[in-house]
């Protein structure tokens, strides 16, 4: 199987993730979609690494995973706090950041 197909799959996953981030209001779902996009990026990195026979992409994928894990920790904590104070996990309810 040609590695190009992995790239197509990654594009598909990324699109799904992006659409989810833009469309869904539930913070948890948005969060999952962000993970989806990150993993799509990972997939491309690994795929290209394979295509070029260069390990840099795979190393990069590890970095992304570490960052994603850190992000999950911080992000989930924020979402939990948000839910506690507002009894809602909708991202649209949290709009205090405007001027």
């Amino acid at each position, binding site marked *: 199987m040609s590695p190009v197909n992995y790239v197509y799959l990654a594009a598909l996953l990324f699109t799904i993730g*992006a659409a989810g*981030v*833009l469309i869904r*209001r539930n913070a948890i779902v*948005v969060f999952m979609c962000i993970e989806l996009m990150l993993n799509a990026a990972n997939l491309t990195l690994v795929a290209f690494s394979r295509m070029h026979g260069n390990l840099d992409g795979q190393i990069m994928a590890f970095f992304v995973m570490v960052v994603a894990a850190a992000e999950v920790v911080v992000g989930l904590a924020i979402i939990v706090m948000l839910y506690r104070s507002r009894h809602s996990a909708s*991202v*649209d309810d*949290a*709009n*205090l*950041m*405007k*001027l």
Partner: protein
Amino acid sequence: MIGLLVGVPLLGAAVLLLGGRRLDRSGHWLATLLAAASFVIGAVLFASMLGEDAESRAMHSKLFSWVPVEGFQADVAFQLDQLSMTFVLLITGVGTLIHLYSVGYMEHDPKRRRFFAYLNLFLAAMLLLVLADNFLLLYVGWEGVGLASYLLIGFWQHKPSAATAAKKAFLVNRVGDAGLAIAIFLMFTTFGTFAFAPVLSAAGEAGEGKLTAIGLMLLLAACGKSAQVPLQSWLGDAMEGPTPVSALIHAATMVTAGVYLITRSGAIFNGAPDAQLVVVIVGAVTLLFGAIVGCAKDDIKKALAGSTMSQIGYMILAAGLGPIGYAFAIMHLVTHGFFKAGLFLGAGSVMHGMNDEVDMRRYGGLRKHMPVTFVTFGLGYLAIIGFPGLSGFFSKDQIIEAAFGKGGTEGWILGAVTLLGAAITAYYMTRVMLMTFFGEERWRKAPTPSPAEPDVEPAAETRGAYTPPHPHESPKIMTIPMIVLAFGSVFAGGLFKAGESFVGWLEPVTQFEHGHSPVSATAVTAATIVALVLGVGAAYLQYGRKPVPALAPRGSLLTRAARRDLLQDDFNHVVLVSGGTHLTRSLVYVDNKVVDGAVNGTAASFGGLSGRLRRLQNGFARSYAVSMFGGAAVLIAATLLMRAV
């Protein structure tokens, strides 16, 4: 020594102004003493000058270098020659007399100390004007007398009319001053200096165009200071000042400064016939203008002011004639100084006895009540109308003769104008005389509102029970100066004329040529006398034979126009005042809305832009995500596009 002349009265002004209330009791005597002191200094200098040869009489003294800037060297330096000497004696002499008179006249004024300080300031500035040896220092004196005049016209500044008159006098004079300033600029660019001696001696080398320009600018200056058409409007209003001021500044000395300036710059005018022609025209027009205005005024001081304007018109005209006229202009100036100061002091004396009433229609028959005033005023009157043998006769006659002597059509026209002027002078002065000292005692009855000027409210105290004034002779301190001036009015002319002594005295400074009159001197004299008789007769028929109405009749169109200063003020008001007001108002609007509007507009447009941009920050995480996504998409698209191209 020359510096002392200026310094003594200046010291007086400084001491009186800074001295405070301590000097309230003695200040006026100090001022009078200092004025007299400068007269004595002047007399001593005069005596020493007489001891010299005619050609080497001029004295110079440089005090210090005033404004030294590369190429522009202005010194505080004095020059005392025969012309200046004449003025020094006139200024200090008449000045001292008027100081003396004011001691009585201003006795009850709470601000008397300040009044005398200003008088001394005036003397200093006027002496500076005539003693300066360069045009810039002359300019200092020129504006200095303007300042003194401003302060004195507005002396009773609690009256809005006085404050307005003072401001007007200063402003109109400023227009003239600008002319003098430009004349000095022109001299500087033409000759590289503005000291009298080098400029006047080199005047011949410059082109006629330059000289004409300088001459016209000097004339503008003279018009402002000497109240000549078209800058004459301030003089009538200046009568708001105390009467001694009118006598000293607005009759005898300051207003004649224009004549001095033209005579002093004779060399420039001699080289610029066009400028001279304009000078003559201005003189002739003012001569008639002032005389006509003088005929219509019921206010005794304003009638005299019109007369002053007219007499200075004579002098300017004479000065415009060139070397045939300079000496006569100055001669008339001096005799006029005597009789006009005398007349004003007489008018002041009348007002003093009449509760400060100035309307001649409220006078009448005063000769019995004020004999000294009547006699001195009468002698001044005879002098000004040119009664044979008195001062005015000799000096005016000479001017008329010189006017004919100009030659050609011009000479005839000028001669006719001056003769006509003489007739009108006789008319209005006789009118003043008759209305004031002869006829019915109109002041005994209460005044009624005037049909001619219904808008003039009768004064409050006259509406109730009317108490007529008690005309009385003024105290000695006031009559003595009047008597002295009356002597001057009678004899000065004859003295000057005898053996052409005055002309000979001035000749080294002003040069002298005899005019070539197409008519003989005798004929001119005869014509003058005829004009005089006609004028006096007409006035007698109108004001002597018939009782004078206590209220001014409506009068003809000309009379009404003349009462309003021949509509000149109305013209000024419509064109300059309201035009200027509109201009400034619209400029204020422009400044606020357009110029500042542009600034505020720039600020506001940034504010608006940021307001728009601010809306993007709506706080919704998803819309930020869209813009991020969009931005990323655009970037990728752009990158791909760049690759493709």
